[in-house]
């Protein structure tokens, strides 16, 4: 057992550190121009060094590096430590780009990958519908081929960032007579057109991250389809050949716990710092126990990745473990706030020491519940673990034939 990254990787770390020291924040010529221009220049430089866009081919703007989870981890650690930007966040880099690289036509990759990577265009994901949540394949938004264009009508919901997105990747029923899973196509849609109506949905925190999107004779070119007609379900499940990062989430949880400790030092309970309360102390240790277990399970998964072996059932548990830990942190935070656990939630800010204000904690108290729902509810996760992990019978398998 060896928890160090080894000499080779520590040398690599030194390289990344030196690069960042010189390049971020930008200075001299690099600091000229708008923030966007500076950011773009920095990303291009980091890509040329092979630090960013590592799984993306050079011809589409990436750095095309051999998969190496440890290098990926070192880069992330060092960029985070320096406060330097990595690839643009958001669903475009996370979902659309890997899908296009795997299943898209060359011209689609040409047109969309580089622009997404450089943060020039932003995407939203058109999956859920009012009647199709966990049972996503029952979706009803329809697309008809009229001449050279798809004409799309229907409604999507829970569409994060739709109000800021330039394009949507969208699951649409194009083959109404085919079986449920075989009648869906994966279409790309320009969001800046007439017929698209984006209406914000206000969350319980008061923020409005996600939206309803209505389509009324929305048009997209015939060849803006990824995969063939009726293959949309499969395309949406394209295996993501990423450098999987199994350690990052636990790192964020540790940062949250540190912020909670800072809050416990600042807040008082019974006239004394909350950090001196024996019950609070024990609960902090309990949360740490869960985080540490999650963290070392990440090390184990990374080791398995490096050996190209399966991590087993553990690999299915990362989301729900993060969810559970988030809930424990949220519940302990509200306990530490005492009477002020009643204050209205403030700006969403879930990272590090900036977390240490009462209203960000009441925000997190609510936001943590959202994590249990977004991207596959905890109950769906339990089904997946029970069925694929423990080998128990499938639920509602019958409808796959409909």
């Amino acid at each position, binding site marked *: *057992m*060896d*928890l*160090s*990254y*080894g000499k080779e990787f520590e040398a690599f770390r030194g390289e990344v550190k030196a690069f960042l020291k010189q390049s971020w924040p930008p200075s001299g010529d690099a600091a000229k121009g708008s923030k966007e221009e500076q950011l773009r220049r920095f990303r291009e430089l980091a890509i040329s060094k092979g630090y960013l866009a590592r799984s993306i081919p050079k011809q589409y703007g990436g750095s095309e590096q051999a998969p190496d989870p*440890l290098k990926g981890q070192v880069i992330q650690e060092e960029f985070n430590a320096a406060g330097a930007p990595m690839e643009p966040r958001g669903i475009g880099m996370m979902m659309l780009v890997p899908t296009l690289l795997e299943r898209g036509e060359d011209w689609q990759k040409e047109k969309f990958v580089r622009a997404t990577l450089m943060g020039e265009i932003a995407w939203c994901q058109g999956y859920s519908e009012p009647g199709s949540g966990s049972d996503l394949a029952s979706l009803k938004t329809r697309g008809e081929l009229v001449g050279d264009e798809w004409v799309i009508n229907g409604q999507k919901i829970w569409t994060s960032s739709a109000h800021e997105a330039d394009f949507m990747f969208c699951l649409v029923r194009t083959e109404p007579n085919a079986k449920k899973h075989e009648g869906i196509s994966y279409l790309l849609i320009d969001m800046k057109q007439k017929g698209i109506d984006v209406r914000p949905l206000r969350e319980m925190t008061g923020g409005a991250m996600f939206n309803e999107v209505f389509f009324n004779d929305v048009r997209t070119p015939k060849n803006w389809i990824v995969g063939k007609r009726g293959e949309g379900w499969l395309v949406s499940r394209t295996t993501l050949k990423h450098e999987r990062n199994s350690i990052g989430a636990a790192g964020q949880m540790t940062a949250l716990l540190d912020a909670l*400790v800072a809050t*416990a*030092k600042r807040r008082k309970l019974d006239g004394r710092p909350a*950090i001196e309360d*024996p019950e609070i*102390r*024990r609960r*902090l*240790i*309990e949360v*740490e*126990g*869960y985080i*540490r*277990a*999650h963290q*070392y*399970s990440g*090390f*184990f998964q*990374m*080791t*398995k990745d*490096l*050996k190209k072996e399966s991590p087993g*059932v*553990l690999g299915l*548990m990362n989301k*729900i*473990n993060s969810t*559970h830990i988030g809930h424990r942190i949220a519940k302990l935070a509200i306990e530490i706030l005492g009477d002020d656990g009643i204050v209205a939630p403030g700006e969403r800010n879930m990272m590090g020491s900036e977390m240490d204000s009462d209203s960000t904690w009441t925000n997190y108290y609510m936001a943590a519940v959202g994590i249990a729902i977004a991207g596959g509810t905890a*109950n769906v*996760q*339990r*089904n997946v*673990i*029970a*069925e694929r*992990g*423990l*080998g*128990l*019978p499938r*639920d509602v398998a019958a409808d796959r034939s409909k």
Partner: protein
Amino acid sequence: MDFDLSDEQRMLQQTVKQFLDNECPMAKLRQLFDDETGFDAVLWKGLAELGVTGIHLPAEYGGSELEILDLAVVAEVLGAHATPVPFLSHSLAGLAISLAGSPEQKKRWLPALASGEKIATIAFSEADDAWLPEQWKLAAGATLSGAKDRVEGAEQADLFVVGLAGGKLGVVERSAKGIEIQRLETADRTRRLGRVHFEGTPVELLAAGGTAAAQRVCDVGLVLIAADAFGGADKLVATSVAYAKNREQFGVIIGSFQALKHQLAEMAIEIEPTRALYWYAAHAQDHPPENVPAEASRIASIAKSHLCERYSQVARDATEVHGGIGFTWEGDTQIWFKRAMFDRVMLGTPRLHKNRAAALSSW
């Protein structure tokens, strides 16, 4: 980075598992569970011949001189099999002598402990949740007068490593005068306990290691209990899943009901990540990180409290999954349920170790 067991460690686990499958199958375990003393010298000898009794002891005294992680992965297997042997306390007693004994003391005692020919145990508890060196009150002198509680394998032990005031360690031989052993009726019948009374009993101090040795013996004990808890809890998840795939109601296996699927999934979610936690806690004993003060002790307390709480909960869930049979003496889950009770208390309850971990924190 290589955070996984080595092939040798997996083989060690496999060897012990195979031995236990053959030599301590369920029928044998049940017999020992109901037996008056619960001890089987042949089983102990068999494990000793595999080297289980001296994994961590120096080679010059007949041990294998492996790491605490190696000891812990064996503890996991023994926990999974609910093996009725005083492995925990024997291992810790040997560790104490190897850390704090003089060369002469090591030479005198360790070979027989490494070979398993003699059984040693630790006598640390003074009741009222007093398990740790800083809590020991029994006065150290040429002789001992007083009592130690919750001593594993007290009736079989040839040698007692006794925790003494000031965090000192001493050795008392069973043949010494003034010892009286009182059997305790405790829930876990796979690891029997006794109370040991001393009345003017001669004791030999283990003077070489100072209080650090006693602290380390306790920390390693916490890791071994965590490993045992993982083995037992993992076993309970597996047997519960197997039962749910076998038992039918309403004409289908009960594992097809979502209520049960979710309960089983949650059990797995609670337990699966803890394997890496006990590995890390053991690894930290072998290779304490230099830049984090008290990390090895602190993570030992965190792992012990975390694993034992998870084990206790999963034992309740497993009993529930098994329905009526789970609540009977005849059913097997009760054996692990009670091992979880032992693990929870031995060397200090989760409450004590959360307090300790908090006290060792940088906050």
